[in-house]
């Protein structure tokens, strides 16, 4: 399998909404198995970019390809986890996940779907909440279930749109580790595009940080994150390399903001 065949590629992708340019000629190549974090200020268009990758919106110009196929509409080859827990509230967790299993494996029986859904829910630590409904669960648990549902599609690409933005710091850290566990153990390796506005989160998770400038969004920096895995928060956050990289990102973001202010 060549890298080109199995990668996610964006060529001069632009998007506008109601006459306002949101994304400006974004070009990116993401090899299979890479964990990429998309970092940018709130409202910078990074969620829009993710929606384009998911196929929920179409670019005005440019081309998006996944595994050498143009992205046209949503597909089961791309799982998505949204920030607002998008589980169906009228279904139990098992039914929510089983729905995804049914789509990934149309030939499976009802019992097989159920069993597989339970496996996925166990994998994200929800053994005790299988038959529960979303309204009975905390935000963190709902987001675990949403991850289980995305995994159940069995897609090689996971798109995550600020999935932990609404969580408290403890749950946030736990779920970050859960995602890393999944990514490190999955075979074949999954590609993850993870949108966040939290610099520490981007650096803790990613192989690479792509920084988007605001209005309209374009790539202002694309930095490799070389910290050894498995990363440890304590030592990472105190290392000189981490601070240097953090500084570099802050400068890039600040320069972009200054430019905006000057232009205004």
């Amino acid at each position, binding site marked *: 399998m060549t890298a080109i065949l199995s990668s996610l590629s964006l060529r001069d992708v632009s998007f506008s909404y109601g006459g306002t340019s949101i994304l400006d000629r974004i070009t990116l190549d993401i090899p299979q198995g890479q964990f990429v974090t998309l970092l940018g200020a709130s409202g910078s268009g990074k969620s829009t970019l993710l929606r384009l990758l998911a196929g929920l919106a179409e670019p005005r110009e440019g081309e998006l390809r996944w595994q050498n196929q143009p992205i046209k509409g949503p597909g089961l080859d791309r799982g998505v986890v949204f920030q607002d827990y998008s589980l169906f*509230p009228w*279904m139990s967790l098992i039914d929510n996940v089983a729905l995804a299993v049914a789509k990934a494996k149309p030939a499976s029986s009802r019992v097989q779907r159920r069993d597989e859904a339970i496996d996925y829910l166990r994998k994200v630590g929800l053994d005790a909440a299988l038959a529960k409904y979303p309204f009975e669960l905390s935000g963190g648990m709902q987001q675990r279930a949403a991850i289980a549902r995305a995994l159940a599609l069995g897609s090689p690409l996971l798109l995550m749109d600020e999935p932990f933005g609404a969580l408290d710091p403890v749950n946030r850290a736990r779920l970050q580790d859960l995602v890393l566990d999944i990514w490190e153990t999955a075979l074949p390796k999954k590609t993850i595009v993870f949108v966040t506005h939290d610099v520490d989160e981007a650096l803790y998770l990613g192989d690479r940080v792509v920084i988007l400038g605001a209005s309209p969004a374009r790539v202002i920096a694309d930095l490799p994150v070389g910290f050894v895995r498995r990363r440890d928060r304590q030592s990472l956050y105190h290392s000189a390399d981490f601070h240097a990289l953090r500084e570099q990102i802050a400068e890039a973001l600040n320069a972009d903001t200054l430019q905006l202010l000057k232009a205004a």
Partner: protein
Amino acid sequence: MTSVTTSLEPLAADSTIPPAPRLGKTLVAIWQWRDAALVWIVLFAAWYSTSHFVVTSANPLLPTPEKVAEALLASLPELWKGTLSSFTILVPGFLAATLLGIASGLVVGTSPRLQRAFFPFARVAAPIPPTVYVPYAIAVLPTFHLSAMFVVFIGAFWPVFQNAAAGAHALEARHRDAARILGLSGLEYHWRVVFPAALPHIFSGMAVGLAFSFILLTVAELFGANAGLGRFVQYYADFADYPRMVAGILYTGLVTFLAMTLLDRIRRRALFWLR
């Protein structure tokens, strides 16, 4: 259309009351219902005193509670038969309206094109008071039973249709996105996502539709029935038997209340997943 009030109490109101000791709970319940009890007592006292002391026996228009109770007991077998007769019209008419209203409402509510096509017509047709169809339906359709069912159907259909369409239209973007990501489409999308999401709206429409159904049913029965609840009241009106008339009115009120309560129970059970 939605001006008819429905008995939509906040869901799971009970769960917000902190657990209290048993005796305390009973007292709290009595305390909470004191105003409602007062209204009942005052209304009954007004009826009792008016019928006994203001409207004398020379004027039978307002019978005393005792006479009404007597008439009610004596008429129970007849009222029960009337109820069964009325329900053979009401149940099929209301159910057909509900099923068709939900199905068409969900389909139209999810399609901008169908909305543009049908909403102008619905806006004109829905506000027509369905009671005006009664004489026409009775004239056109071969049996009274059919014409009454048709009128009940029309009355219940529009509120259900409009609410189902509004519910489908108001489907949250996150649920629509999730459905698209999961590759749900067509019937599966409507059955597993749009329908449950629209259920709160649908139940509001059903409550309005059910209230309309009772109104139309009894109005239709005033015209041409030989049995039924509306017919009961009309029949004894012809004989100026006011105790039986009032008994029939009270009984019809009770049946309507029970039907609305049943629908509300079903709604609460079906919507348990709403916070």
